[in-house]
């Protein structure tokens, strides 16, 4: 409290703080770049998941990268990955994330986020699993499901589904 003005305390009590509502809504059009375009085009046109391999350390990235973050070298080798892989981490989401509250394509609760190691990749892809959550555990195999109306977007993979008879 301001010690130079002993009346400030009582003055403040008489003031009902006001609020001002605002919103930042700036539309962006992000160019996804050559690397991203090749990945998203393969998703959209061929239902293929592409990664790329660092020439130096051999890490296979998905989504593909312009350069290897560890080696700081260009990546030139493209790799077609399987559309199946293994769940390495998961969380069952019980409260709708704020970012999905107004999303037309939002899954119903509960759904899961998972880090998925696609066969052939050396990093994990973040995506969603929306069905058979009672069977979901780390180590289980899952397969990508593709949208019937692809647009060149990460959600051209609608989600991953658990493969039956998986260990």
């Amino acid at each position, binding site marked *: 409290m301001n010690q130079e003005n002993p009346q400030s305390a009582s003055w403040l009590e008489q003031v009902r703080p006001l609020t001002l509502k605002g919103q930042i809504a700036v539309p962006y059009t992000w160019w996804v770049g050559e690397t991203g375009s090749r990945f998203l085009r393969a998703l959209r046109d061929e239902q293929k998941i592409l990664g790329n391999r660092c020439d130096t350390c051999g890490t296979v990235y998905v989504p593909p990268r312009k350069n290897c973050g560890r080696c700081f070298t260009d990546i030139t080798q493209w790799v077609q990955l399987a559309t199946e892989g293994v769940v390495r981490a998961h969380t069952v*989401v019980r409260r709708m*994330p*704020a970012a999905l509250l107004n999303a037309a394509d939002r899954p119903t609760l509960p759904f899961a*986020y998972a880090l998925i190691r696609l066969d052939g990749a050396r990093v994990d892809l*973040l995506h969603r699993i929306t069905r058979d959550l009672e069977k979901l555990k780390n180590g289980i195999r899952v397969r990508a499901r593709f949208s019937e109306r692809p647009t060149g977007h990460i959600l051209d993979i609608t989600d991953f589904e658990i493969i039956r008879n998986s260990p």
Partner: protein
Amino acid sequence: MEPIAITGVSQTPYRERMIDKTAYDLVYEVTRDALADAGLGIHDIDNVITVSNDFVDGRTISSMAVGEAAGAHDKNISTVEGDGAFGAFYGAMRALSGFDTTLVVAHGKGSEGDMGLITNAMFDPVYQRHLGIDALTAAALQADVYMTRYGLTEEDFAEVSVKNHQNARNNPLAHLPLDITVSDVMKSERLSDPIKRLDCSPISDGAAAIIISTGRASSRSRTRPIWIRGVAHCSDAYFPGDRNLADSPALRRAAKRAYAMAGITNPLKNIDVVELYDAFSYMEPLWLEGMGFSEPGSGARLLKDGVTRMDGILPVNPSGGVLSAHALMVAGLSRIVECVLQLRGEAREHQVPGAETALAQGINGPCGQSHCVWILSVNQ
């Protein structure tokens, strides 16, 4: 390294909604209080660093809006958009480059925006943001990996929440002092498995400030200087899927460098108190492992053995930690402020008796992507 010291500190109480104070008011308040603490006037400050986030503040170049509140008019002012511990790191670099007296001030009013939307926006807009992932759900993935890897339980994490909220009862500035049990944590609302409501830090409003002085200028302050003996930061990969989330190599490296600077050879023996960034309960044992206080996977053991309790040999988060007060952008700087108070013997009810060396930690990015480690000491 030339000797540099923290010679003034202040922080506001951390509360849910500070309706009577703007961000500007908070910055002005902590700036004045830090100067009063040091016994300095604004003209003694030769440069200023503000810490803020445009999305949290809802304006672009948010740093420029608080310059005058920080007394930066006609001064050299610069900005860090990241946790306050990283702002302080920049301040330390400026002190080492010749500025005598540096003010670092951080503010965050999470109550005014929407933290779910804001933390969603830190993820890659092409590949991740549309999935809806945010700080909470990403942390839940990390907690899951950590548990799976080492066979930990949700109760292990709940114990951390119980301890830190209990510690907060001795800290009048804390937002959430609570007397709770493991069972209370376990029964609290499940948000994103394995994380429940009482595993999460609150969204707090607040601000903090520190003054960093060169050795030659430190005697101008009336306080006992607290010496910056070691400080380092290190960053891991941006995409969580690229990282080994059950370990924290970036923290390991930052701690190693800070320890080397400070001459720490046996952290458990050489460090008396830790204030770390426990945004979620699982983070405390995971970060303690990264800091080298225990082997990988055995961080939770430290609490079970009583090591990290107030009466243990290494009290961790005597203030209640970030679990009990989490003003975004401020929390890492608040860890430094808390350590300074501990080392001065001014932490009152949550004082660790006789503390001489302290570790403060800040994090940035999802799941602790980058870490900043501080070793502070009463000894130069």
